[in-house]
């Protein structure tokens, strides 16, 4: 091997290693969530595979809080963009439940009431588009509204929409409105509603009928007691 070749190899390797050693250490920078691409452009870029593209976008969004060397709390994300991403994913794959799970169980759990309400509102809007398949996310949103936000009026609105728009949902979900009314002190309304459910034969399970009948009796007694207290 001629000595100039050795010299060139060693000199270039040494210079390169020295240059890299003197370079500053990389710093972690938190990147803001970008705007999602238009669904039609994503569909074209994915060569006509919208479902696979939706799945990849979902995993990208889910992992966005974990960037190289830095972790971003969900509450620091721009929720308008988060909502746009979730909407884009649903536009590409309408059958998936993943975006609704993320909205209800991840992004709505932040300690920021306005962001929680924004997510719950998005879940509600998406529920109205496909109530038979998406009722369980609105059921979770109902519980979130009642127990985390303390907004029983909002919880009642959601529970009423489940009962009205999702007849295929299980009875516990369709009966949530009754128990929310009871919690709101609207005993009479709750009794009438529960009585109506029992009378119309919507509830068929004997054990469930027995439980709800007992509950109705308790509500009626509670209503009578509160009426007699008011009288005196």
């Amino acid at each position, binding site marked *: 091997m001629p000595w100039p070749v050795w010299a060139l190899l060693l000199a270039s390797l040494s210079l390169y290693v020295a240059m890299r050693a003197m370079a500053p250490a990389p710093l972690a920078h938190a990147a803001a969530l970008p705007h999602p691409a238009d669904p039609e452009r994503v569909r074209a870029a994915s*060569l*006509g*595979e919208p*479902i696979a593209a939706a*799945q*990849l976008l*979902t*995993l990208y969004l889910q*992992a966005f809080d974990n960037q190289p060397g830095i972790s971003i709390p969900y509450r620091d994300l721009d929720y308008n963009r988060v909502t746009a991403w979730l909407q884009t994913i649903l536009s590409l794959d309408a059958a998936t439940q993943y975006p609704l*799970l993320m909205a209800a169980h991840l992004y709505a759990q932040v300690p920021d009431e306005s962001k929680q309400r924004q997510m719950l509102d998005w879940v509600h809007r998406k529920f109205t588009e496909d109530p038979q398949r998406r009722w369980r996310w609105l059921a979770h949103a109902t519980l979130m509204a009642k127990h985390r936000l303390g907004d029983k009026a909002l919880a009642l609105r959601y529970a009423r929409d489940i009962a009205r728009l999702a007849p295929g949902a299980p009875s516990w979900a369709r009966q949530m409105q009754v128990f929310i009314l009871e919690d709101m002190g609207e005993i009479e309304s709750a009794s009438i509603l529960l009585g109506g459910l029992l009378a119309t034969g919507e509830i068929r399970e004997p054990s469930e009928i027995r439980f709800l009948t007992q509950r109705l009796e308790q509500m009626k007694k509670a209503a009578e007691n509160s009426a007699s207290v008011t009288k005196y």
Partner: protein
Amino acid sequence: MTQQIVTIARYTLLEAVRTRLPHLLVAVVMLFGLIGIFVGAIAITENARIQAGTYAASMRLAAVFIAAFHVLASVSREFNDKGLDVALALDVPRSHYILGKLTGFLTVGACLAAVAALPLTFFVPLESAAAWGLSLSLEIGIVIAAALFCAITFRQLIAAASFVVGFYVLARVLTAVQLMSAHPLTGADTPAHQVTRIVIDALALVMPALDGWTQTAWLVVAAPDWSSLGALLFQSVLYTALLCAATMFDFYRRNL
């Protein structure tokens, strides 16, 4: 006549085996299967759905390109090694040569599709996996016919490969491009847009809309009607016949 076609097809199959194509296919299936399992593992819900979707989308692309480049490499090698000259010197009609090669390559493509669809039977119903596999074999068949046409016409591997890649990508995105050109955000009345729209619509008349073949929705939502698969079969046979006729036309007019 048929004997010559069958013999050429048989040797085409033998070449595929001897060039380690099955080994490559198995390696690719395992790779994308592992990627699908990894992607499914990091999802917090719909794990099987994401596994099937990721594997199907990537394996579809890989199977098509493996088939296309195998055809291009095989025909290019045959030209360079003068195997074609020997075959034609044995008084094999040019049409029989093309038909024999196409039959062999289509058989290779069908085997590729079957192996690619096999892992899906663990994640999705058998009917869905079968429909997906059948459609993939039809899609690969169209691409094989296009690759054979390009290999005969261009005679240069890079040019032929570029054309096949461009053809396939355009066929996959054509529907989306047509929709975007029909409903632009701005500039709908400009002459440039009108010309673009005419060109895209003209292309749509002569190219298959391959986004309708081998859909991932068949695996993760619901299996297709067999009548719609029948329509795809008819389109695939017709387009393959068109490409085969174009290949024969170009092959006959060459001075060899």
